[in-house]
C-alpha cells in the first residue's frame, strides 16, 4: 500500500486528466493537439485500471493487463492517426480540424 494516498486521490487525478483531455479534444483546432488530448483520456483510464486493481484485488492482474493493452492500442492508434494527419496535411496544406469537413453528406 502506498502510505497516505487513498484510492480517491487516484480517481480525482484520473477524472481531472479525463476532462482535460475531453476539453482539449473539443476545443483545440490542431489535429496533433487533439491526438494528444486523446492520449490524456486513455491514460486517465489506465490510472483508474491500475489503481482499482491495486486497491480492490491486489492478488489479481487483470487491471494491469488491460492497461498494457490500452497502451498498445494507443500506440497503434497514434500511428494510424499520424498517418491520417499527414495525408490531411498533403491534401489541405494544413491540419486545422475545421477544414476537414469535406466528407459531410
Amino acid at each position, binding site marked *: 500500500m502506498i502510505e497516505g494516498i487513498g484510492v480517491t486521490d487516484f480517481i480525482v487525478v484520473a477524472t481531472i486528466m479525463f476532462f482535460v483531455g*475531453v476539453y482539449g479534444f*473539443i476545443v483545440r483546432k490542431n489535429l496533433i493537439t*487533439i491526438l494528444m488530448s486523446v492520449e490524456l483520456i486513455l491514460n486517465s483510464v489506465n490510472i483508474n485500471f491500475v489503481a482499482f486493481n491495486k486497491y480492490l484485488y491486489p492478488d489479481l492482474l487483470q487491471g494491469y493487463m488491460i492497461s498494457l493493452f490500452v497502451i498498445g492500442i494507443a500506440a497503434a492508434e497514434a500511428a494510424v492517426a499520424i498517418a491520417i494527419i499527414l495525408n490531411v496535411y498533403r491534401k489541405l496544406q494544413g491540419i486545422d*480540424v475545421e477544414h*476537414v*469537413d*469535406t*466528407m*459531410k*453528406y
Partner: protein
Amino acid sequence: MQTNFSYTIWIPLVLLASFLVVGLFGDKLRPRLSGLISTVVILFGAVLSYWTAFQYFLVNGKADGVYQTIVAADYEWLRFYDTLAIKMGVLLDPISIMMLVVVTTISSMVHIYSFGYMKGEKGFERFYAFLSLFSFSMIGLVIATNLFQMYIFWELVGVSSFLLIGFYYEKPSAVAASKKAFIVTRFADFGFLVGILLLSYFTKTFDFQELMQPDNAAIAEMAGLSFMGMSVLTLALVLIFMGGAGKSAMFPLHIWLPDAMEGPTPVSALIHAATMVVAGVYLVARLFGLYALHAPDALSVVAAVGAFTSLFAAVIALTQTDIKRVLAFSTMSQIGYMMLALGVSRYGGTEGLGYTASMFHLFTHAMFKGLLFLGAGAIIHAVHSNEMTDMGGLRKYLPITHVTFLIAALAISGIPPFSGFFSKDIILSAAYEHHPVYFWTGWAVAGLTAFYMFRLYFSIFWGENREYEHKPHEAPFSMSFALIFLGIMSAVVGFIPFSKYVSSDLMPYETHLHMNVAVLSVVVAVIGIVVAAVMYMKPGGAADKVVKAVPGLYKLSLHKFYIDEIYLFVTHKIIFNYISRPIAWFDRNVVDGSMNGMAWVTNKVSNKIKGLQSGQLQQYAFVMIAGMVGLALFVLYWASR
C-alpha cells in the same frame, strides 16, 4: 399387322422448317423462290397426309372392324415433376387424319392460288412464311395427343391468324381487325384454359386417350361433384366449349370473324373458312366421348349455341353487300350447323349420326367454302372492289370463276348431287331424330343459305351489265387451277361414304339418305334459289320492293343486329366508365399516392436534418460527450431515487 405411322411426325416438322427458312432468310431469297419452297413443302405434307389416309382407312387402320387410335409418336416436351409432364405427339384416328387431309389440301391450293393473287405484293415472302407457320400450327393442333399440346397449337393458330389478318399492316382497319380477332379469341381461350385446368385437376392427366377411357373413375367423380347446380365436369366442358366457340365464331363471340376479312382473300379462304375456324368443332369432336357419355347438358349448350348462331348469321348474311362478309357470315352459319350436329348427337352406332354428320359437313364445307372464298378472291382481283354493288354481268368475263363459283354455291345450298347436299342431309336427319325445333331451324337456315348464296351469285355474275373501267380479266393459271381443283372436289366429295370411316365410337356403320328430310331440304333450297333469281337476276328486280316492305328488319340485319355496337357500349360506356376509371383513379391516387407520399415525407425530413451532419469532428464529439454526460446524470439521478 400394324403399319408404322411414325413418318407422320414429318408433316408438321417440314412445315416448321419451311417457316423458319422462309421467315428468316426470305428477304435474302427471291420472293418467288420462297413461295416455291413453302408450296413444295405443303405439297409434300399433302402427299404424306393422303398416304396416311390411304394406309389408315383402306389398308389397315382397323382391328376387328373397329378403327384404332394410334399414337404414332409421343415425346416428352416439358417435365415439371414426375406426375406433371407435357408431351408432344401425333395421335392418329379417323378425325385427325381427315383433318390432316383437309388442312393440307386447302393449304396447298391456297399456296398455289396465292402465286397469282399475291403477285407483286410487298411482303410476298412474309406471306408465305406466315402460311407455313399457320399450316404447321394447324397440323400440330389436329394431331395433338393431349389437351395441353392442343392448347399450345391453338394459341399458335391464333397468332398466325393475327399475323395474317394484319398482313396489310399499313392499313389501320386491318390492324384494328387483327387486334380484335386476337383479343376476342384470347378472351374465349381463357375459358378454354380454365376448363383444361379443371379437367386435369381432377383427372391428373392431359392425355386424350386416358381421358376417354370409359371406366375412368376421376371422370365419374367429376360428374358427381356439383358446383352451382352443374356438375364440375359439365362446367369444365362448357368452359372448353367457350374456347371452341371463340375460335369458331359462335354467337356471342363471333364479332371478330367479319372484321377478319381485312386479311388477304387466300387467308380468309384458308384460315377463316376452311380450317382454323372449325378448330372449335374439332375440339368438341375430339372430346366427344366426355361430352356425350358424362355431360349431356354441355352438349345441349353446344346444340343450342350452334342452332342459334346458324340462324342468326344466315339472317345477317342476307343483307351484307361486301362479298367477303357475306361469305364470312355464311361460314359462321355453316359452323353453327356443325356444332348443332355435334350437339344433337349421342355416343355410339347410329345414335352418333350427328357426330359423323358434323365431321362430314366440316369436310365438304372446307372444300366448297374454300372454293367460294378463292372465287371471291378471283372476282376481287378482276374488279378491284369488295362491294357487290360494283359488280354485275361478270359471267362473260370470268368463265372459269363463274362455273366454279356456281358449283360451290349449289354445294352449299344443298342441291344434289353436290357435296353439301349429302352432309346437310345427314345433319338434318340427326337433328330430326333429336328434336323438331332443331330440325326446323336447320331447315330454315338451309333455305336462307340458298337465298343469300344465290343473291350473291346473281348480283355478281348476272344483274346489270356494267361498263368496267378496266376490262375484267380471267384469273391467271395458278388461281384458276386451284379453283378447278376445289370445284371438282366440291362436286364429288359428297359421294364418300363417310359413316364407314368416321363415327363416334370408331365403329363403321351404314347411313342412308333420309328421303323426307332430303325432299324437304331440297325444296326449301330451290325456293331460296328461285326467290333470289326473281329478285336479283334481272336489273331492277324485286329486291328494292322487299327492302321497302320490311325496313326495320332490313336495317337490323344490315347492321348485324347491332352486336358490335352493343359490345362497344358495354366495353366503352360501362366497363371503361364504371369499372376501369375508378380502378385507374384508385391506382393513381391511392396506390401511387401512398408510395409517392412516403417518398415525399422522407425527402422533406432528410432535407431538414441533413444540417446535423456538418463534418465538424469536434461538434460530433461534443454532442456525443454531452449525451454521455446527460445519460450519466440521468442514471445517477434515477439510481438515487
